[in-house]
C-alpha cells in the first residue's frame, strides 16, 4: 500500500492530514540535521527497516524530501522547501508544548514529553493557537532540552522589541519595571505569602539585584527571595 496523506474533516474545514508516523520521520530529519547528519542510514537507524522505507517513500511522494546520492553512509535525505516548512512547524509545536507543560503547568518530564508528541501534529493545534501559546510563553528561544525552537511569525513581529512578551522574573533586567502577569508557585502557601506582600498579578515589580540573593521591590517594600520563587513569577515589561 502506498502511504499518502488524506483529507479529513476538521472543525476548521478540510485539511491535509498525514499519518503521524510521517510527521515523526519529518521531525527526525530535522533533528538529525541539527546534529549535522543527513544520511539515510542514521536517519532510519531507530526504525524497523521495512517501516522506515515505507514512510520515507511516503514523504518522497508528498515531495517533502528528496534524496541526493554520493556519501559513503548512504544517500543524503534533504528537505524540499515545502518539507522544510512543514517540519519547522512540527518542531515548533513540539518544543513549545514541552515548554508549556514543563514550565507553566509543571508536569513531570514523562508527561510533557508525551503531550508534546501528541500536540505536535498539524491537525491538533491551529496556527493561531500556536502563536498564542508562543506569545504567552514569551517567545522562548529553546525547548527544555536546550534545543532551539524555530521562530514563528509572532516572534518576528515581536523581534523589534527584542525582549519577549512574558518572561520569568528571574530573567528580567535589574532596575527595569515589570508587571506581574501570572505566578505558578509550587505551593499555595507561597502564593498566599507573596500575595499579602502585594506581590500578585497586576502589581508592578522591579528587580533590585540578583546576587548574592534576589531582592525585588514591590511598591515601597523590598523583599529578598530565593531563585526558586522568583522563576515562578512571570512578568511583562511596563
Amino acid at each position: 500500500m502506498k502511504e499518502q496523506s488524506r483529507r479529513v474533516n476538521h472543525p476548521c474545514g478540510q485539511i491535509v492530514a498525514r499519518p503521524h508516523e510521517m510527521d515523526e520521520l519529518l521531525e527526525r530529519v530535522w533533528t538529525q540535521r541539527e546534529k549535522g547528519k543527513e544520511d539515510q542510514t542514521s536517519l532510519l537507524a531507530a526504525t524497523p527497516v521495512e517501516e522506515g522505507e515505507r514512510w520515507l517513500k511516503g514523504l518522497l511522494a508528498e515531495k517533502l524530501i528528496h534524496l541526493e546520492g554520493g556519501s559513503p553512509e548512504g544517500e543524503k535525505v534533504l528537505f524540499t522547501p515545502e518539507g522544510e516548512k512543514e517540519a519547522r512547524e512540527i518542531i515548533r509545536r513540539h518544543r513549545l508544548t514541552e515548554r508549556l507543560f514543563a514550565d507553566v503547568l509543571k508536569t513531570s518530564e514523562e508527561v510533557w514529553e508525551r503531550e508534546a508528541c501528541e500536540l505536535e501534529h498539524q491537525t491538533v493545534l491551529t496556527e493561531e493557537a500556536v502563536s498564542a501559546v508562543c506569545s504567552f510563553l514569551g517567545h522562548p528561544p529553546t525547548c527544555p532540552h536546550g534545543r532551539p525552537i524555530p521562530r514563528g511569525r509572532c516572534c518576528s513581529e515581536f523581534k523589534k522589541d527584542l525582549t519577549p512578551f512574558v518572561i520569568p522574573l528571574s530573567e528580567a533586567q535589574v532596575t527595569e519595571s515589570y508587571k506581574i502577569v501570572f505566578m505558578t508557585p509550587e505551593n499555595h502557601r507561597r502564593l498566599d505569602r507573596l500575595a499579602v506582600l502585594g506581590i500578585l498579578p497586576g502589581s508592578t515589580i522591579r528587580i533590585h539585584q540578583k546576587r548574592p540573593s534576589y531582592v525585588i521591590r514591590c511598591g515601597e517594600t523590598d523583599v529578598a527571595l530565593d531563585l526558586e520563587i522568583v522563576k515562578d513569577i512571570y512578568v511583562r515589561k511596563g
Partner: protein
Amino acid sequence: MADKEQLVASETTPKIALVGNPNVGKSVIFGLLTGRYVTVSNYPGTTVEVARGATTIEGQPVVIIDTPGVNSLVPMSEDEQVTRDILLKEGPTAIIQVADAKNIRRALLISLQLAEMGKPFLLDLNMEDESAACGITIDKTELATKLGVPVIGTIAIQKRGIKEVQKKALSVAPATFRFSYSAEVETAIQNIKTLLPKSPISRRSIALMILSGDKSLKGWMHEKLSDQTIDQLEQIRDSLSRLYSEPVAYVINKQRLRVVDELMSFCVRQERREKEGWQSWVGRLSMHPVWGLFVLAGVLIVVYEFVGKFGAQTAVNFLEKGLFGHYLNPWAVTLFSKIFSFSPFLRDLFVGEFGIVTMALTYALAIIFPIVITFFIAFSFMEDSGYLPRLSIMLNRLFRLIGLNGKAVVPMVLGLGCDTMATMTARIMDTRKERVILTLLLALGVPCSAQLGIVLGMLGALPIWATFLWFGVVGGSLILVGFLSAQILPGDRSDFMMEIPPIRRPTLINIVTKTFARLEWYLKEVVPLFIIGTLFLFLLDKSSLLPKIQNFASPLVEGFLDLPKEATEAFLVGFLRRDYGATRFFDLFGKGRLTPIQAIVSLIVMTLFVPCLANVLMIIKERGMRTMIAIVGFIYPFAFFVGGIINWGLRIL
C-alpha cells in the same frame, strides 16, 4: 511589678490592640502610649511574645496590647495566628492599626479585614516623613471619609501625632466602608454565616477565614461548632474552590487588593521621589555581591574594635585588675577573713581560690559583663539600623548549604552574644528541621561573646596560625555538621522570603533600653550559674574529689588530648558554662602551664562544647528532651574527638 497586678485585676478594663504589618513602628508607639518598653526590632519575628501595658487614656484605665506584625489576618505564621487569636478571642474594645505610610497598599489590605470584622479601629499612618521622602501624598481626610474611621498621621520616633492617637483611641467606631466579593464568594459567605455562633468579630469575617482554608481556626471551630456543622462548612468551601483554578484564599486576596487599589486611586498620589538619601545608598552597598563583603568586613572590624578591644581588653583590665584586683577583692578578703575568722572553710567559700566573690563575681562582673554589654550594644545597633536582614542576603547561599537559609543569620549572630538567647529565637525558622539544625549548630560551634573574648585573648598570645586553625576547625565543624544533618534529618527546607526594611538611623534611647533589657535577662541567667559552678568546684576541691576525677579522666584528658591534669577541672566547669571553662584555661595558660599545642587543643575542644547549663535547659524547653539528649550526646564525643585529631595532627607536624 505594679503593672502586672493591675493587668491581672483588670478583666473589665477596656483593651486596645495595636495591629499592623511588621516593621511599621508598633512597638515604638506601644512604648509611647504605655511608657513601658518592649523590644523594638527590624527583624520580622522578634516580637513573637505579646507585650501588654497598662495606662490611662482620658482618665480611663486601659490595657494596651502590642500584637506581633501581620501581613494578613488569615494566619500564615505563628505570629499572625497570635494576632488573629487576640482579636478573635480577647475581643479588644478598640484597635489601633499602625501602618507604614509608604507601604499603604499592604496596610489597607489589613484595614479591609478589620472593617470586615466590624471592630472599632483607627488608622495610624506612621513614618510620614519616610513616605514624604518617597514622594507619596495621602489624602487623610478623603481616606477617613471613605473608610469611616479616623486616619491620623504620625512620626513615632519624633513623638509626632501620638497625642491625637491617644485622644481618639477610645472613641472609635467600626468602619462604615463596605465592599463585596464576586457573586460566588458572596453566596458562600451568606451560607456560612447562618451556621456560625456570635463572636467578638463579625460572622462575615470568620466566614472569609473559613473560605480561605484557615487551618489555625480548627481548634476554635471544634470548640464552638458541632461536627455536622463543620462538615457543612467544608462542603461549602469545597464547592466554591471547585469554581476556581486558583486557591480560594488567593482569589479573595486578589479581590481585596483590587478594592485597595481603587481606594488608593482616590486618596494616594505618587509624585517623583526626592533624591535618594544616604540610607538607601548604604542599604544597596551593604547587600552588593562585592561591596557587601567590604561592608561586612568593615562592620566586623568596628565590632571587633568595640567588643574585642574596648570591651574585652580596656574595660576588662580596668575592672578586673583595677577595680576588683586593687580595691574590691583585697577589701573583701579582709572583710570575710574577719567575719569568718573562726572558720577557714567559710572564708574560702567566699574569698578562697574558688570563692564566690573572688572567683564567681569577679568572673561574672569584671570579665564577662563588659564583653557582653558591648556586644549587646553592637548587636542592637546592627538590628535597629537594618543591617542584619542585609547580612542575611549576603549569607543566604552559605546557609543553604548547611540546611538553613538567610533567615538563620540573625539567631546565629545573636548566638555570638548569648547562645541561650539565640536558641530561643530559633523559632523564627519555618520548619522543625531547620530549628533543630540551628539549635545544634548554635550549641556546637557558635562561641558566645563571653567565651569569644577569652578565646581571642588567648589566641592573641599564640602565633597567628593558631587563630586560623581555631577558626578553620570550628567553622569547618559547623559547615560539616550542618551539611550532614541537612542530609540526614527528615523534613523540609523552607523558602527564603524576607522583607528588607530600609536602613534607618538607630535611635539612642531604643538601643539603650534594649541593651538593658537583654542585660537584665543575661545577668539573671548567668550570675547564679557562675555561683553554682564555683560552689561545685569549691566542694570538689574541699572534698578532695577533684584528684580522683582527674585520675579517672586522665586517659581522655592527659592521654588522648595530651593536656595537663588541671585541664579536667576546666572541662568540668565547662559543662556548666563553657566560657567559665575557657577562663580556667586562660588562667592555666597565663601561668605557663600550657604549651601552644595544648592551648589550641583545649580552645578547640572547649569551643565545641555545649555552651552552658542554661542553653541545655533552653534546648529542652524549645525543642524537647529527646532532641536535647541527641544534641548533647553528639556534641561532647565530637568535641573530644576533634580535639584528639588536632592534637595528633599537630604532634606529627
